[in-house]
């Protein structure tokens, strides 16, 4: 007995059962409700996207380990988590190379190149999603189901359409695969229950986001408005699963609270003032980069050890630092805005004049008719009519020839129903009611999709037609004059254009003709 060799090591000599692999398994398990619901809701497409994303994530990590001769790390399950999270943030129907590319980018560039699990400085799944959003925005932001394109709750919200909170909560509306807030919450509660995550980050994120919306959302303490924002646009997904990724979040409770608040406020800023629907993704990615700083300022003073306070109790240093950062960023943004505002106004006026000449080339000059201006003023800037969505009539210029005889009326109309906000265009209607042509003065639609509205193939359809109103043909097989073929895959943008033109025609018929 005495001659045997025994193991000698530093205490403690027992270890908890939880390993890295099991911790990842808990996260995978927590994502199952959302995954299963997504497949149930969107069918095979969702399944294929998930499978492609997970498989390419695992394969990428496996190959990287093999090629760089590192010990295999696929077994820890973190690649599966990344692939699954990424898939749940994507729409169900898209070319399968999209999730594959996203996963490869996430694993290879964000995780492996920085040293693998534990060393990545931003959430790989989110980085993958942002990469896809930038590179394949048309595909990734297209939530058409069964060929029918309709707005996601967030888009509907942005354009003022009614949104059903319950639909968004259950996830029966349109959206990404993991859009069911209910299913996500079930997973989140499970993670909290097994203490895989702590409450600090989700709570701070959601509360600060709500408070920001109440303060700056422009609707005051409108609970329905806030709840709508909470159930849409991935803020819950972000707060529960992305921001709580341990590797890229602060390690102390205090730091986690600061981190959560930062995400909530940034999401709020992007949601209220920005145009990207993916406010949470970008907010978390930015907050990820602030983690080392947050960690540094949130080292706790240990149990019982209190540093002597000098004089009065001041504001915590961390709060001051974060405030200063926020102020500097805000000041920089607003000064840039100030500087560019004037320039933009000049350019806008020039663009408007150019568009007038484009649609009404026969006019020698443009003048304004007081009677018509009066009719526009009577609208008081409200939405025009009831049949044209969110359409506005901005102004009407009368194109006159050298002799002062009116040849056509250029009506500037705006539709708020665009995919990315407003679509403003100038329509020239000849005295007999024939549309002479249209030109855009404001078009910020998705590149390669909604932006195609500005192509002659689309806008040329309006020219030379004399009808009371146009209708949009989403199938793109129109035969009649008054039918406008939708730009493929951009029926929202096309619809906005048709609405604006119809509003102008209606205004022409009522007040000018």
């Amino acid at each position, binding site marked *: *007995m*005495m001659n*045997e060799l*025994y*193991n*000698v*090591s*530093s*205490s*403690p*000599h*027992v*270890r*908890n059962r*939880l*390993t*890295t*692999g*099991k*911790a990842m398994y808990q996260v995978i398990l927590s994502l199952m409700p959302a995954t299963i619901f997504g497949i149930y809701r969107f069918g095979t497409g969702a399944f294929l996207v998930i499978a492609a994303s997970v498989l390419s994530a695992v394969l990428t990590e496996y190959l990287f380990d093999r090629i760089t001769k590192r010990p295999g*790390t696929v077994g*820890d399950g973190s690649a599966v988590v990344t692939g699954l999270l990424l898939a749940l943030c994507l729409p169900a129907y898209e070319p399968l190379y999209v999730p594959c590319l996203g996963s490869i980018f996430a694993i290879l560039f964000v995780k492996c190149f920085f*040293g*693998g*699990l*534990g*060393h990545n400085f931003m959430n790989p799944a989110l980085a993958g999603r942002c990469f896809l959003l930038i590179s394949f925005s048309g595909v990734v932001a297209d939530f058409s189901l069964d060929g029918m394109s309709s707005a996601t709750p967030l888009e509907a919200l942005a354009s003022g359409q009614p949104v059903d909170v319950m639909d968004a909560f259950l996830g029966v509306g349109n959206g990404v695969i993991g859009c069911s807030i209910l299913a996500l919450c079930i997973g989140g509660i499970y993670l909290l229950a097994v*203490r895989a995550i*702590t409450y600090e980050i989700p709570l701070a994120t959601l509360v600060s986001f709500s408070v920001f919306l109440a303060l700056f959302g422009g609707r005051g303490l409108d609970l329905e408005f806030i709840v709508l924002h909470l159930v849409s646009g991935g803020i819950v997904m972000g707060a529960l699963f992305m921001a709580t990724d*341990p*590797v*890229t*979040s*602060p*390690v*102390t*409770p205090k730091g*986690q609270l600061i981190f959560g608040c930062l995400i909530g406020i940034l999401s709020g800023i992007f949601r209220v003032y920005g145009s990207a629907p993916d406010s949470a993704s970008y907010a978390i990615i930015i907050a990820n980069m602030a983690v080392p700083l947050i*960690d540094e300022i949130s*080292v*706790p*003073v*240990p*149990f*019982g*050890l*209190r540093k002597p306070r000098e004089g009065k109790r001041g504001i915590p240093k961390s709060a001051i630092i974060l405030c200063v950062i926020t102020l500097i960023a805000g000041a920089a943004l607003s000064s840039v805005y100030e500087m560019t505002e004037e320039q933009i106004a000049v350019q806008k006026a020039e663009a408007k004049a150019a568009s007038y000449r484009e649609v009404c080339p026969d006019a020698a000059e443009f003048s304004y008719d007081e009677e018509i201006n009066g009719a526009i003023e009577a609208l008081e800037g409200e939405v025009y009519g009831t049949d044209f969505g969110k359409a506005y009539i901005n102004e009407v210029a009368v194109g006159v020839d050298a002799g002062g005889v009116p040849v056509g009326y250029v009506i500037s109309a705006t539709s708020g129903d665009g995919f990315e906000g407003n679509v403003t265009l100038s329509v020239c209607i000849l005295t007999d009611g024939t549309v002479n042509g249209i030109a855009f003065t404001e078009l910020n639609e998705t590149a390669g999709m909604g932006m195609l509205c500005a192509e002659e193939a689309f806008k040329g359809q309006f020219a030379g037609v004399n009808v009371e109103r146009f209708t949009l043909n989403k199938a793109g097989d129109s035969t009649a004059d008054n039918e406008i073929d939708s730009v493929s895959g951009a029926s929202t943008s096309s619809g906005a254009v048709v609405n604006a033109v119809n509003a102008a025609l209606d205004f022409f018929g009522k007040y000018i003709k």
Partner: protein
Amino acid sequence: MLRKTFQGGVHPADGKEFARNVPYRTYLPKGDLVFPLNQHIGKPARPVVQKGDLVLAGQLLAEADGFVSANIVSSCSGKVKALENRKTVAGLSVPCIVVENDSSYTLADGVGAETDAANLTGQEILDKIKAAGIIGLGGAGFPTHVKLAPKNPQEIEYVIANGAECEPYITCDDQLMRTKGSEIVEGLKIMLRLFPNAEGVILIEENKPEAIKAMEQACVGQERVRVQAVQTKYPQGGERSIISVVAGKHLKLGMLPADAGCVVDNVATVHAIYRAVCKSEPVMERGFTVSGDGVKSPCNLMVRIGTSFSEVLLEAGGIPEGVKAKKLLCGGPMMGIALASLDVPICKNNNALTVLCTDPVEEAQKAQTACLRCGRCNQVCPLGLTPQMMAVAAEKKNYERYEKKLYGLECIACGSCTYICPAKRPLMQLFKQAKAEIMAAKRK
């Protein structure tokens, strides 16, 4: 409403079922007894015997040298065989007195003489405690007569007998409370004599209902003494944890428990005080648990100080045949010291031998991954430190940051962070190394 627990902590499997219901039996060793001179914190004791001297059980072998030091008495009768360096639990060779046991255990004069503590002054009580060589028997080994003589005895609010016994596997304090409840209460009352304004509290974890019941019965009719049952959680028995639960106060940097109005002693120490003051018995024996899945019949023994670990293991039936013991621990699995050899003596502050057939550390090494920054270590640290950041600083040998920014030297080495870590990082090892290197640099 009494507080139940402290912040942080973990719940390791307690393994108490092996020996918790085995009553004490006395084990008298057959071989030589070895008495290291540095069993306590502070200066090693100075030998007062020479090679060849005949000593009796209870006779002084080495006396306290300096303020923080403690006497060492012989626990058997026999001849002083050698004063030489021997290996001890920590694996180091230290000066020891070796006594050849004549197995008669003849007591020295005056040992066992009954005294009524009521007739003693405070100083006489302290002198008796010092003479008996009592140190913190729970593990720390701080000389008790020093601890019981703070600058401000009137300001002590709580005298706490620590019966938490939060370390897994160990059950000797549990059995002591179950069987010697009234003697522990007597010991506590002797301590209260020194602190006129204090309340005596016996703190026990809820996983020892029999001990709680026994101690509550022993407290019936006694003034200034009560039992406080606390949640079963490791490290509940740590001094800071206890003070935060009982007094609601947090020990600050560099503070002693007395500065927070508390005196904390293990129940075994309190019992030793009773025996020293009322029976004139110095520390010759102590309760000792032999447990673990690598022991044939786990038990609680009353063993003589200086007994070899190997003798004690044989008394517990040894390692069962066909079983391969992987790890031998002095103490329990959370804070115990892994033994390379059993041929080392039991010191006053050693309370258990745990034999494990599996070595989770070995398995953990295979499962080790990079730190996930999950922060579980920060959550369980009973001191509110940030082990995650400390480990990074220690790995980079950034000791300035480790000490000044992260307060790394405050670590009590409870091992909770290492236990909980899903990435199986060897945190405790890093911290021990960092502390050793920082202290070495400071001594220069």
